[in-house]
């Protein structure tokens, strides 16, 4: 009975804490500017099913896709087991689903095989990060916390899977001993090989089985509460992020309605613009970005596929699309913390541009969309870069000199070079 109450309290506390943190993240995302992503629900649903659920963009790199698939499918399916653990924990039962008979054996057997593949995949991932030191996982933005974060996640998953398998091994051994409470249920294709390393007395086995059971469930509840602080949050946000992703051609950049009004008024003095709230052009800080940009930032799992295909980054420039996303997330988190501590009106005098992302970074972008194409969850770093450029150019007139010259040429000669408009048709005369 005490165990059941303890279980209930822990579960409720974990869910409550997670809810508080999740709501904070959603509030932070809502600090972004509105953008309509409710159109074409069917196409959006299909995109989500294909890209997030079906992992369609992962296959570009087969080895990590294969390993990630095991971890992903393991995560989804082993959660059925968590449901049983929940019921057992609350009602003091043991392996409540064993009534399913053959199906139950099949399920437990499958979970074991999946747990094993998750274990192996995570171990390989650790090797790739820490021993092989793949280039994709390095970079200026991948020091300290982000580096540790990735390792914590992998180690936690290995520990959780180990606990699950050890728990089953102890259970299987107890079943063989005919221990009361331990009904004959389940198939143990993996954990049967662990039985030999376990003690042989019933009391010791019960301690192992119960410890692993508690470790496994407390571990899951703790991991749930680790998510909001971690890149691992993508396991939840990959779904809404792909659903609300851009469906238009990647080459198409948004036309700013506020500018349209002013340009129309300039070209046609009789034009009366519709009332729009005066705002700044482009983005200086995260709250000038759209909520989709901010959701992108929380979804990023720092895999670095974007940065590894970025032509600027490949050729040694400072720009890294992954850093753009991580900076955006760190800054919106900071803005959220300021609100919690000092109220909504508080200004800390910092901004995304300059305090996090430098001018050198935003001007190195070729707008080639390789980062957008590469992202397995449809994050768009390019849009953030463009918004920062818009602020630099339209609010501050702070473009590189040669860019100013180019724009001057367009204004005066209707071409980015210094040629006379009268000569535009000369190509037809020469040959």
């Amino acid at each position, binding site marked *: 009975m005490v165990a059941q109450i303890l279980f209930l309290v822990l579960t409720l506390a974990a869910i409550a804490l997670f809810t508080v943190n999740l709501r904070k993240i959603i509030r932070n995302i809502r600090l972004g500017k509105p953008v309509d992503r409710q159109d074409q629900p069917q196409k959006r649903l299909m995109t989500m099913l294909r890209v997030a659920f079906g992992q369609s963009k992962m296959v570009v790199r087969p080895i990590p896709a294969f390993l990630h698939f095991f971890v992903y499918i393991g995560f989804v399916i082993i959660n059925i087991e968590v449901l049983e653990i929940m019921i057992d924990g609350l009602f003091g039962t043991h392996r409540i689903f064993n009534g399913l008979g053959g199906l139950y054996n099949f399920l437990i057997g499958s979970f074991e095989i999946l747990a094993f593949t998750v274990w192996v995949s995570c171990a390989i991932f650790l090797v790739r990060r820490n021993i092989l030191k793949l280039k994709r996982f390095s970079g200026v933005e991948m020091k300290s916390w982000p580096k540790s974060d990735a390792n914590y996640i992998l180690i936690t998953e290995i520990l959780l899977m180990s606990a699950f398998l050890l728990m089953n091994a102890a259970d299987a051994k107890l079943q063989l001993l005919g221990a009361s409470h331990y009904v004959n249920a389940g198939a143990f294709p993996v954990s049967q090989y662990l039985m030999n390393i376990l003690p042989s007395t019933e009391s010791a086995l019960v301690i192992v089985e119960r410890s692993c059971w508690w470790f496994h469930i407390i571990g899951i509840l703790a991991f749930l509460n680790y998510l909001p602080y971690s890149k691992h949050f993508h396991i939840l946000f990959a779904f809404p992020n792909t659903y609300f992703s851009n469906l238009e051609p990647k080459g198409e950049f948004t036309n700013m309605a506020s500018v349209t009004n002013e340009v129309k008024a300039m070209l046609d003095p009789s034009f009366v613009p519709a009332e729009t709230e005066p705002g700044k052009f482009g983005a200086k800080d995260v709250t000038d970005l759209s909520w989709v940009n901010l959701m992108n930032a929380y979804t990023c799992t720092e895999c670095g596929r974007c940065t590894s295909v970025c032509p600027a980054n490949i050729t040694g420039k400072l720009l890294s699309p992954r850093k753009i996303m991580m900076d955006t997330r760190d800054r919106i988190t900071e803005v959220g913390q300021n609100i919690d501590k000092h109220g909504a009106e508080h200004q800390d005098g910092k901004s995304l541009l300059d305090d996090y992302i430098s001018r050198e970074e935003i001007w190195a972008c070729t707008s080639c969309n390789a980062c957008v*194409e590469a992202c397995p969850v449809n994050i768009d770093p390019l849009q953030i870069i463009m918004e920062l450029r818009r602020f630099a150019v339209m609010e501050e007139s702070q473009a590189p000199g040669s860019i100013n010259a180019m724009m001057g040429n367009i204004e005066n000669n209707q071409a980015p070079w210094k040629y006379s408009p009268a000569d535009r048709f000369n190509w037809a005369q020469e040959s």
Partner: protein
Amino acid sequence: MAELMAAGEEPEILFWVGCAGSYDERAQKITRDICKILHHVGIKYAVLGTEESCTGDPAKRAGNEFLFQMQAMTNIEVLNAYNIKKIVTGCPHCFNTIKNEYPGLGGTYEVIHHTQLIQDLINEGKLKAEGGESFKGKKITYHDPCYLGRGNGIYEAPRKALEVLDAQLVEMKRCKSNGLCCGAGGAQMFKEPEKGNKDINVERIDEALQTNPQVIAAGCPFCMTMLSDGIKLKDKEQEIKVLDIAEITARANGL
């Protein structure tokens, strides 16, 4: 265009030449070859001549939305005044801007890139690869322009135009949706690159050279500049030609 209008006629298609195609010496050759192809198949086309002006693409990618929309609305006024329905462009940047960004500002047209026009003409049997230079068996590698490929998902049209040559098409390691930028996009064409350890066009040329090509095919005047500069830098101008798909098509047909 003004002349056609004065004669009370309408073109089947408007050829949007673009600033590079109008002023850049290298790109002018591509412009003239596109005209030769249009003439060869008997399409009634027009150009705006001195009434054309920058689409505003480089201003927009640089962050100057004002200048972009000023250019866009001025151009849309001209295009709508001539009642233009269909446009072919010689540049993926003009193509992307007019096709995707003009409709929201009042300019809706059917817009195609010249490689799509060539593909259509080949499919319709109006254009073949005969009567001119033979590319048979030649090693050709095609560089995907970002705003044609990733930007608008057009990967097959330019390849189709090369397939009829009976040449040997070799893909670079990074091609199609994974293609590497030439380094000119996003207004980079008009500025010095940021500090790094290599120029992007050199990175791309190094990759192209690995396919050991005789011809590097391009579909964008900016890519043309970047790739040609790269080839010059590598001192390979004699062995390797950088040619636009339109130029290759025109040559293959003896135009």
